[in-house]
């Protein structure tokens, strides 16, 4: 490889790495990191009204390849290649040394200890931690570096080390919000923290906040929301209800983010599953009924306000099917309790009105209205498919619905034909 032939390159790379690691050590509170074109450094300094960032004092260089202010660290895009090569080589060497020392240490322990060796092991151990940190901030999914940290951590008892690890993962996610390894490492640490007796409530609160902040800057981030899903298994019923309430505002501000709506579906299903164990007229069942009704009304309001948002209609598909399966079968029992209007024809009438009001398109309409018509037509198909008892006007059922869908979304004509065919043949 060219890089090993060039000693200048190597010397420069090693120097950059040591500068980088000194900066990381000097400010343990760095909470944001980014790769920045060097021309931006000048601008950043101008904004601050200063000619240099804090890094010049740390590195001793007047002109630095790094920029640090208010715990935000910028790395010049021009040094990424040599810096990465140095970080990778140094880390790989350290981790090899550490693993072979561990083996050696095990053998010596068996033959009655040598603390000299254990001391040297501590040095290598902190080297691995230092270099893997630098490497992961450059290459977030370098699995071997995360693993080497897990290996060392699994021998430790001190909770604060685990909390530090959450900070590192958070820092990596500030720049690489989709990093699968950083999320996975977080879960590994949290599992251990919970096992060691750390407060679950505190973890849940902080993790929910983190996911929300990251979801804000990285839209429809599957990995971030998956992390929040994973936390659900640690939640009590009160916490599930709390989360449902908490995410409502965020969802209303991000109506295209299907991830958040799916998360709400998950929470709703948990509540629903609990209700099937509860007494039918219990206050819990009524509360669940109210939650569902509120969700349907809220979703309808959003659909009317934000035209053509697929995620809102997908949410409605879910809500209606659960509603029909779960509540309308027991409506007599519900009606007895507190005047809730719960009959099936009433529900369907409301849905058909919604579809009608959303399915009008003229030739001059914008794309959003076309999307709204497509979604509403597909929603009606969904209701018909999922509810064989549904007696919708024959005209609406077949010819008109197919025509509407083909007009609103001609590119999916094969799908619409196949779906309407399969409905007609099942009649």
């Amino acid at each position, binding site marked *: *490889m*060219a*890089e090993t032939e060039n000693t200048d390159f190597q010397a420069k790379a090693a120097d950059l790495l040591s500068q980088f690691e000194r900066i990381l050590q000097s400010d343990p509170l760095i909470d944001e990191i980014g790769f920045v074109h060097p021309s931006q450094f000048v601008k950043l300094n101008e904004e601050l009204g200063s000619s240099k960032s804090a890094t010049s004092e740390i590195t001793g260089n007047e002109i630095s390849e790094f920029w640090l202010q208010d715990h935000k660290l910028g790395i010049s*895009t021009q040094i*990424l*290649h040599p810096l*990465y*090569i140095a970080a*990778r080589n140094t880390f*790989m060497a350290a981790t*090899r040394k550490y693993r072979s020392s561990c083996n050696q240490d095990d053998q010596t322990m068996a033959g009655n200890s040598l603390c000299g060796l254990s001391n040297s092991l501590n040095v290598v151990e902190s080297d691995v931690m230092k270099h893997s940190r630098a490497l992961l901030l*450059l*290459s977030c*999914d*370098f*699995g*071997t570096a995360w*693993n080497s940290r*897990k290996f060392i951590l699994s021998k430790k008892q001190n909770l604060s080390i685990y909390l530090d690890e959450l900070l590192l993962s958070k820092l990596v996610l500030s720049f690489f919000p989709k990093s699968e390894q950083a999320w*996975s490492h977080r*879960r*590994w640490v949290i599992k251990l923290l919970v096992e060691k007796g750390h407060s679950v409530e505190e973890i849940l609160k902080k993790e929910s906040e983190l996911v929300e902040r990251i979801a804000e800057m990285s839209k*429809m981030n*599957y990995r971030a*929301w*998956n992390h929040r*899903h*994973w936390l*659900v298994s640690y939640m009590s019923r009160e916490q599930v209800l709390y989360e449902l309430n908490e995410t409502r505002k965020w969802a209303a501000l991000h109506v*295209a*983010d*299907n*991830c958040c709506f*799916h*998360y709400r*579906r*998950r929470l709703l*299903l948990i509540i629903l599953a609990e209700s099937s164990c509860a007494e039918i007229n219990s206050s819990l069942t009524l509360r669940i009924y109210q939650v569902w009704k509120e969700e349907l009304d809220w979703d309808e309001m959003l659909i009317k306000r934000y035209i053509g*948002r*697929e*995620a809102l209609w*997908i949410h409605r*598909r*879910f809500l209606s*099917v*659960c509603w029909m399966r779960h509540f309308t079968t027991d409506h007599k029992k519900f009606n007895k309790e507190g005047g809730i209007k719960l009959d099936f024809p009433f529900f369907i009438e409301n849905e058909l009105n919604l579809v009608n009001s959303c399915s009008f398109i003229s030739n001059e309409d914008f794309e959003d209205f076309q999307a709204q018509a497509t979604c509403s037509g*597909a929603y009606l198909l969904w209701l018909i*498919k999922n509810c064989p008892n549904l007696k919708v006007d024959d005209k609406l059922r077949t010819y008109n619905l197919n025509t509407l869908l083909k007009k609103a979304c001609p*590119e*999916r*004509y*094969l*799908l619409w034909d*196949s*779906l309407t065919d*399969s409905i007609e043949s099942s009649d």
Partner: protein
Amino acid sequence: MGELATEKHVQYILSVEKRKDDFQSVVMEHLRMNGAYWGLTALDILGKLNIVDADEVVSWVMSCQHESGGFAGNVGHDPHILYTLSAVQVLALFDKLDVLDVDKVTNYVVGLQNEDGSFSGDIWGEVDSRFSYIAILCLSLLHQLDKINVEKAVNFVVSCKNMDGGFGCTPGGESHSGQIFCCVGALALTGSLHHVDKDLLGWWLCERQVKSGGLNGRPEKLPDVCYSWWVLSSLIMIDRVHWINKEKLIKFILDCQDTENGGISDRPDDAVDVYHTYFGIAGLSLLEYPSLKAIDPAYALPVDVVNRIRLGKRHAI
């Protein structure tokens, strides 16, 4: 409509392997094994695998194997089930599965199955329905599927199914085309497709096609060439591929080519990479684009490679 720039793509794939002089080309080195699978399978579909030195590739692949039997993404890295499958697939492409110590690889994969039937990606325990597919495919290629608890493995995959007909990465996780491919693939390889509501899932998958003809991975997302593979292969496995507009999808993929320097990108005019180049070519193969080798939707390998392996089993018996 333009045509597939076969020669350019071959040159592009070969050049990716040699480039090491900038950050972008070295920073993905931890998953080089996946890269090898993408690049080499693409070459094979294009009918150009013979220009690669098979011995060199095989010896590099084997240098990534660990004591545990698992493979790493590159020499000196830790093993993971993701790279283990890619290693086995690359060896299969070259008809070199016989260099493997089958028991050793099998033991590695079998050791990752959990009590609930799911699979961890490595010793650190992260669970994902993708790993179930990988384990099942890896063992199928080695004729060792009977070494795991298939029933439990299938039950776990089925538990990742959502009410929309799709599948997520864990039970309750959001439906995602990539995860759907893995779950449907796992069910197809174990003869368990009866667990899938084909009309419902087919509907969800076809709604991924957007105006430009391209497919997205989830609702409200932009189209991306890689979903040509994940969505199409799933549709084929559940026999609903005739519900999609194939002509528009072919055009979308061809529009994502860099016709000057080769390679395919996620969307028209974006930067190309080997991952999207493979999925674009594999997608076109599923769409029966002329002069491409056919690819198997569940094994994610050329059909002739899969047939060779199946035949191998018959001979072994």
